[in-house]
């Protein structure tokens, strides 16, 4: 019983991580246009004023060793509550509070069975497709600059 609850908890966490990542890693204008295309949205309330702060970005020595502080990055933060009381949290790179509020709204909707499918179908799937297309385009540009070395067979003469 406890195990299945934990499993369910893990599924919710993964769904929230996916929804948040898709909103945060796509342009605000794209995300907003998709939300605006929905016929209906949950009523929302800001639980605290949205604000801009800093996150210290960390790296690892040698790429996979001990952590060190690389430098800071502005992040917008929002906390939104939807009508049934579910609270969503958004943290998005940059200083765009609207973007963070959309991330918080998605985070709240993905936790609410009444909204989860609408979010998935009309927001998350299109965002995932656009992101994949964008990444594939960049990766094709990179692949076109891959060096193809000419190899010569050196004949060492008859054995």
């Amino acid at each position, binding site marked *: 019983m406890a195990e299945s609850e934990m499993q369910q908890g893990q599924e919710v966490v993964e769904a929230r991580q996916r929804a948040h990542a898709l909103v945060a890693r796509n342009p605000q204008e794209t995300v907003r246009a998709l939300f605006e295309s929905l016929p209906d949205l949950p009523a929302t309330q800001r639980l605290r004023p949205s604000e801009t702060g800093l996150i210290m970005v960390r*790296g690892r020595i040698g790429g996979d*060793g001990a952590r060190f502080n690389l430098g800071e990055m502005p992040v917008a933060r929002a906390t939104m509550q939807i009508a049934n009381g579910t609270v969503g949290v958004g*943290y998005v790179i940059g200083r765009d509070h609207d973007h963070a509020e959309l991330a918080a709204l998605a985070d709240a909707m993905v936790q609410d069975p009444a909204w989860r499918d609408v979010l998935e179908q009309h927001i998350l799937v299109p965002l995932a497709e656009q992101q994949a297309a964008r990444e594939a385009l960049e990766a094709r540009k990179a*692949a076109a600059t891959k060096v193809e070395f000419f190899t010569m067979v050196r004949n060492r003469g008859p054995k």
Partner: protein
Amino acid sequence: MAYVSVKGGERAIDNAHRWLDEKRRGDPGVAEIEVAQIREQLSLAVDRVMAEGSCYDPELAALALKQARGDVTEAIFLLRAYRTTLPRFGMSQAVSTKDMAVQRRVSAAFKDIPGGQILGPTFDYTHRLINFDLADTGPDTKATLASKPLADQMPTIASVFAHEALLETPEADPADGSEPYDLTREPMAFPAGRDQRLQALARGDEGFLLSLAYASQRGWGNTHPLCGEIRMGNVVVEFQPEELGFPIEVGEITVTECQMISNFEGSAERPPQFTFGYGLVFGHNERKAMSMAIVDRALRHAEVGEAPAHAVQDEEFVLYHSDNVEASGFVQHLKLPHYVDFQAELQFIRRLRREWQAARAPGDGLSEAAE
């Protein structure tokens, strides 16, 4: 009795700043530059301002460049000043450069690095001839698209030789769970750990680090490095907010990473192997990442039993002088009024001259000099 001016100049200062604003705008007959144009078309200047401003925000860095009339060091200062106005939400998870969406990845040491040599958008192999076509509107060139995208993950140079232990393994996070040194919260202190050194170098002045790296290659140092790997591309930044209890992806940033390889001939405790110098910088900046990696390796002399004999191996010299906001402030404060200092020095020099002349005067100069 003399009058001493203690204040004043407000109107002159206001008018100087108005003229500065006019100068910034330049000829009003020429279209004003937009921040988005700077961000998109002067993106490497933007990257440098973000790296040394230690604040990843392309919009703000572009705006700072506009405000500073293209003075990169001034723009870096503006960005550093801005970051002090914001609260700190927390620390990110460490970015994973091995999962980078690679735009460029080359190894000068190992031709057959798995994944291949990916040149990316590089100035290398250009002829460095001025392109007069750009004087007008430039050509609308599109990048070539390969039929297949690059693999999602590029193997690192370290992973290639891992099974032979030919390359050193970087130290892991400290076992006591202590957090990395943070120069934005703690003052520079010595001896510095490698985490502290890398943070300082990551925001250090590119020109200073480049010159140190160059000097160390030419003999004022002890590094004979090969470029193991350079990679540039996007990495995902994850952050775990206090209120969530699990990490979330908050965005992507572009970074440049460099692994410099140097020989280590072994000691009583360690077999011979290659050692690494490491560079990691915000944005696309290979010159900076390579310089950082060379300087990082030079500063590790004690770990490999090298006798420090050069400036690049002296961490106090390097770290105290690598920050161009501090350096610029200290050098440039000399142009602010030092009237009282100079008045005191005038009196001092006049007295010394009287004494010097009196000591050389014929006859009884002693009583005069004693005044």
